[in-house]
């Protein structure tokens, strides 16, 4: 499906979504509350069938966080990027691990690295960081670790 068609079909589902076509793929910006709804449609609609989430990550923009979902369809081979702007102080978004199981691990990684809380995630625990790690999120821009800093 071409970018224009994708844009039309997503606008139909979510009139509030905004688009950015400058990049490699179509970028869709949605509100956190709409994410799961859009994800279900993208995953299951017969013309989109985005069944493969090949990248799931987060970007810290200091003022806010952005969740980035890269979706691919193994049937149609079209891609789309869904972006969700999150509040930096209390980032919360609904999980998509029920739709793409790979999101389970990736969301756990984002949870510990950025502190994003995923609502309804089945097993939101630390995955990479050691047990008892509290508060600080290493990939946030304001992260500082004066003890383990290597001084050159």
């Amino acid at each position, binding site marked *: 499906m071409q970018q224009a068609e994708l844009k039309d079909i997503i606008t139909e589902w979510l009139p509030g979504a905004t688009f950015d076509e*400058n*990049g*490699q*793929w179509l*970028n869709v910006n949605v509100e956190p509350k709409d994410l799961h709804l859009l994800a279900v449609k993208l995953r299951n609609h017969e013309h989109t069938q985005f*069944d*493969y*989430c*090949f*990248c799931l*990550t987060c*970007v*810290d923009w200091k003022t806010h966080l952005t969740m*980035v979902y*890269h979706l691919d369809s*193994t049937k149609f*081979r079209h891609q789309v990027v869904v972006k969700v702007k999150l509040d930096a102080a209390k980032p919360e978004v609904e999980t998509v691990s029920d739709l*793409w*199981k*790979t999101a*389970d*691990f*990736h969301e756990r*990684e984002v949870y510990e690295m950025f502190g994003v809380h995923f609502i309804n995630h089945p097993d939101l625990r630390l*995955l*990479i*960081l*050691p047990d008892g790690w509290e508060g600080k999120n*290493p*990939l946030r821009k304001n*992260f500082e670790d004066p003890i383990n800093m290597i001084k050159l």
Partner: protein
Amino acid sequence: MIEESFTTAEGDLVINVGPQHPATHGVLHLVITLNGETIKKVEPHLGYIHRSIEKMSESLTYRQFIYVTSRMDYLSAHINNHACALCVEKGLQIEVPGRAQSIRIIMDELTRIASHELWWGAMSMDLGAFTPFFHAFREREVINEIMEETCGARLTMNYMVPGGVMADIHPNFQRRVKDFITLYKKKIHEYDELITGNIIFQNRMKNVGYLSSEDAIAYGVTGPAGRGSGVSCDVRKHSPYEIYDKLEFDEVLETAGDSFARYLVRIREMNQSVRIIEQLIDNIPDGDFQAKTKAVLKLPKGEFYQRVETARGELGVYIVSEGGTTPYRIKYRSPGFSNLSALDHMARGSKLGDLVAMMGTLDLVIPDIDR
């Protein structure tokens, strides 16, 4: 008191496979709940060699950050470097000379063969056959020597730079690659004699660690593991980079979805890699090995994503640039991380001995998972 600590409330045995364990080939820590010999749950605990490569890359320039990625999946170091170089080139819109493209692909495919050979040996060793390990290293050593001669290092080459490759190929390169192909063709049937045809091996592999194609897609299992489940997930085919679209090779697909299918995919993929190298080795175009680039690279503001096929699956490099000399954020979508997430699903209900076969055929490289 011994009895109390030994089992869970349900009477299950919880054992820690790793962080130091012969089968994990690194510091992977799996907490396994066992009922007798049958696995009830596998829970990976990661991070024992997490070096925060993503965070490190944020403070390195676009030339510097490439070398770190050799340390992610150290068995496909070339391909990792390639992915980063491609992503930077995409941002800068550099046209890579044809000579560099051919060299890059030959290097990638040699890396893939070397990686699969090490996997073959290590996986056979996990299953209890020690001899294949040494036999596989004999061929792998030849590739390593080719790498050493041209790139100056055996494992972490840092040969790809934005715009091409760091140095031209060594004068001996073509001859030695051809020698390697001759040797490879002479020895590859021994792999089948030793391991593939062996009845014990086949029984250990068949119907073990079944992963349906739907599950493989859902878990994001890519590379030979995904293709063993019948998912057409070869990035070289569906979104080709460099000159892969002009080359003749087949995407190896097996539909059984078990460990043996994943094994066969890797073995056949080596033959396809040899086929690619044979097409290119005599036709490396003349010209520059590196495009002219500025001394200080600055990517325009924006987001760039590059997908490549490493020996283990799809590697994604996601660069967010703010227009500076260093990336604002880098995400590496490593294949091992997603492949590992399917392990629990595959392992439930199997025997403890099968776990080794599954981990072997998923071809987990721990630094790739932890990054």
